[in-house]
């Protein structure tokens, strides 16, 4: 059982607090969803070094041995989603898209399409669209990108820690299993990222 303190840090024996204010970008108004990532780095330390100088990052990081680190406050926004949101209605139920608008967007070249779809999606509220930086927490799993199709397999210890963390965050923010996504589901990212993650 965990609690969240006034600084937005998860208090539990299972979580080591290693906060990097360099990856926090203003206040997070609410937590509506969780997004699972993989770091493309061999160890947590590589990612921490990157966090010292770079603006992108996520709220939690799980090392290959299952160690859980909290790297940003759950009250702060991190840049973890990426530039352009995918269309949730196109992915899950085309009947719920504004068909005329989406048809005109799909006639564009791919690079123009992803910008136009992003603008269209951001006019909606969650859960009609995928989560954004402003309403989600990011969880990184340490793991390298192997080739054009694969990332390293998520370890059994990472899966166990991810299950625990997701379950705690579900409780704190009243989320459901439908509110957990992998990064390539919501943004245009390598399809292998977090594809072997399990949280249920």
């Amino acid at each position: 059982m965990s609690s969240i303190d006034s600084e937005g840090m998860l208090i539990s024996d299972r979580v080591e607090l290693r906060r990097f204010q360099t990856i926090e970008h203003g206040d997070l108004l609410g937590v509506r969803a969780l997004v699972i990532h993989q770091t493309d780095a061999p160890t947590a330390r590589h990612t921490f070094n990157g966090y010292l100088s770079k603006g992108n990052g996520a709220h939690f990081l799980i090392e290959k041995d299952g160690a859980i680190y909290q790297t940003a406050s759950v009250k702060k926004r991190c840049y973890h989603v990426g530039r352009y949101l995918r269309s949730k209605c196109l992915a899950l139920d085309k009947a719920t898209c504004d068909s005329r608008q989406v048809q005109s967007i799909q006639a564009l070249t791919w690079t123009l399409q992803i910008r136009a779809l992003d603008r269209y999606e951001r006019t909606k509220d969650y859960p009609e669209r995928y989560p954004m930086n402003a309403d989600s927490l990011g969880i990184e799993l340490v793991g390298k990108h192997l080739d054009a199709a694969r990332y390293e397999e998520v370890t059994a210890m990472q899966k166990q820690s991810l299950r625990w963390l997701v379950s705690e965050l579900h409780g704190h923010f009243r989320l459901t299993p439908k509110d957990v996504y992998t990064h390539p589901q919501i943004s245009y990212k390598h399809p292998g990222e977090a594809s072997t993650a399990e949280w249920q």
Partner: protein
Amino acid sequence: MSLRSALFGVCALLAGCSSSQLDLDDIRISRFHSEEPERCRPSDVALDERQIASFFKRAALIDGRTLHDEFDWAPCYLEGTLKYQQTACVWRVRAGATGEIECPATELYFGCKDCGDLFEGAAQ
């Protein structure tokens, strides 16, 4: 140090990671592939061999993390073969202005922030 990181390190020392120093020859196009054929079409990456050479010359040689953070992964690409340092390799150029060269001992990643003319021009 792996060959891949050694190559990247050398490249990083030369001309800000520009790939123009790479010794690429005999570029041939084999096929177009799309995982989302309704949305990512041949016209999105309609490049000829000369334009593929131009892409690899203009694109920056980047690591996987930069590819992930700063570029969009397009579900369609052109694929073909080339020779890199006399070795036969496979290349892919994706509609999001990213590319890969896979050789037996290494894999190189490329991203181009200034190649809009190649991709948007291709679709017209």
